């Protein structure tokens, strides 16, 4: 019973601190956290067809490149990654916002695409391009 009382007191204290943190820190406010400008993956389709390269690039017609955009506010969404440096930079930014900027929202994982195109009138090439598609975003 004693240990339960101790545990409950600890939990209560922790809850108080955490609610205080949220009140005093706009960067951890869920309202701000999930606004449209939070760092996240955004849709970007590169269309070779729209660029009128389809007479030259045989496949694909285009590809989902995606991009990362938004502000690095903490805590990030659960699926977001941030480097230790980014967290430190955010904290220093809170102390001195005019001097130290927020960290960058950038890709953390990228994947390749393959493109098939005519090299000239008769020769054809299938080439793998690394790091062309954003798989996930995070703060750096």
């Amino acid at each position, binding site marked *: 019973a004693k240990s339960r009382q101790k545990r409950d007191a600890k939990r209560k204290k922790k809850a108080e601190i955490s609610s205080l943190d949220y009140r005093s820190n706009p960067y951890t406010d869920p309202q701000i956290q999930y606004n449209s400008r939070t760092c996240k993956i955004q849709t970007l389709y590169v269309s070779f067809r729209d660029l009128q390269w389809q007479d030259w690039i*045989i496949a694909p017609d285009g590809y989902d490149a995606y991009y990362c955009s938004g502000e690095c506010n903490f805590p990030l969404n659960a699926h977001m990654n941030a480097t230790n440096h980014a967290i430190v930079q955010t904290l220093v930014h809170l102390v001195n916002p005019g001097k130290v900027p927020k960290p960058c929202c950038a890709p953390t994982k990228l994947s390749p695409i393959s493109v098939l195109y*005519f090299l000239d009138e008769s020769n054809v090439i299938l080439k793998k391009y690394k790091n062309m598609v954003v798989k996930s975003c995070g703060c750096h």
Partner: protein
Amino acid sequence: GSGCSERTSGLYVDNGYDQTVVHRVITQREKREVEHEILNLLGLPDRPPKHKANSAGPQVKRSAPKFLLDIYRNGLADEESREHQTEFGLSGQDLRAIDQSDVIMTFAAHNHHVPSVRHERGKRLWFDVSEVPENEHMINAELRLYRSLDQAKSAKNRGAFTLTAYRVLRLEDGERELQYIDAVNATAGREGWLSLNVSEALQYWVANPAGNRGLYLSVHPADRQVHEMKPEDIGVVGFRGVAERQPFMVAFFKSSGIRSRAAA
């Protein structure tokens, strides 16, 4: 011109949300420049000329683009459907080379005529390999030929034959000097693609472009090595044959990681 987290008069710029810049629609010329930059990044600095529009349609029906399109589609497919056999009859070595490759190039066969050369009964095939990327490690190169039994001149010519590829070394007074490259047996009554390993020849041509005098293809009945025949007599499709059965060369490369780009 502002990068991520760059400060501009007290405001920091973040991911394109630069509040100090008024966004505008770019001009047609600027749009072209941006497109050119994307092409440059892809290692394709020149836009295709406009007059070539829609020329891709019939070209894609040729054997070499079809071969690569087959590999491209197979590469996108999941494991289960990837195991289906393609019409090009890919060997285990081919599949390994495909998996290891960063660049796969095909070269259409040309009739690169050299006036002083007597061709006798064999066939000379020439490939423009000037576009082979520098700094790439070649894994393998193959010459692919299609044997169509319908096109064999007689029932006798549907039997077993040996196809041998030689690299043409020197041409003096109309005489050839040949170096053996590889040989393959075309089994009796079997139609389809035949492949010969021509890695050695391609490596030599890339290193010595002036020495590219093509390949000489010789055909003999499997049991009589002295009797040379024309490849078309046994049904081997030439570069003037049906588009999807024309001979071509394919090379597999592994990227060295060094990227050469045209100056922007």
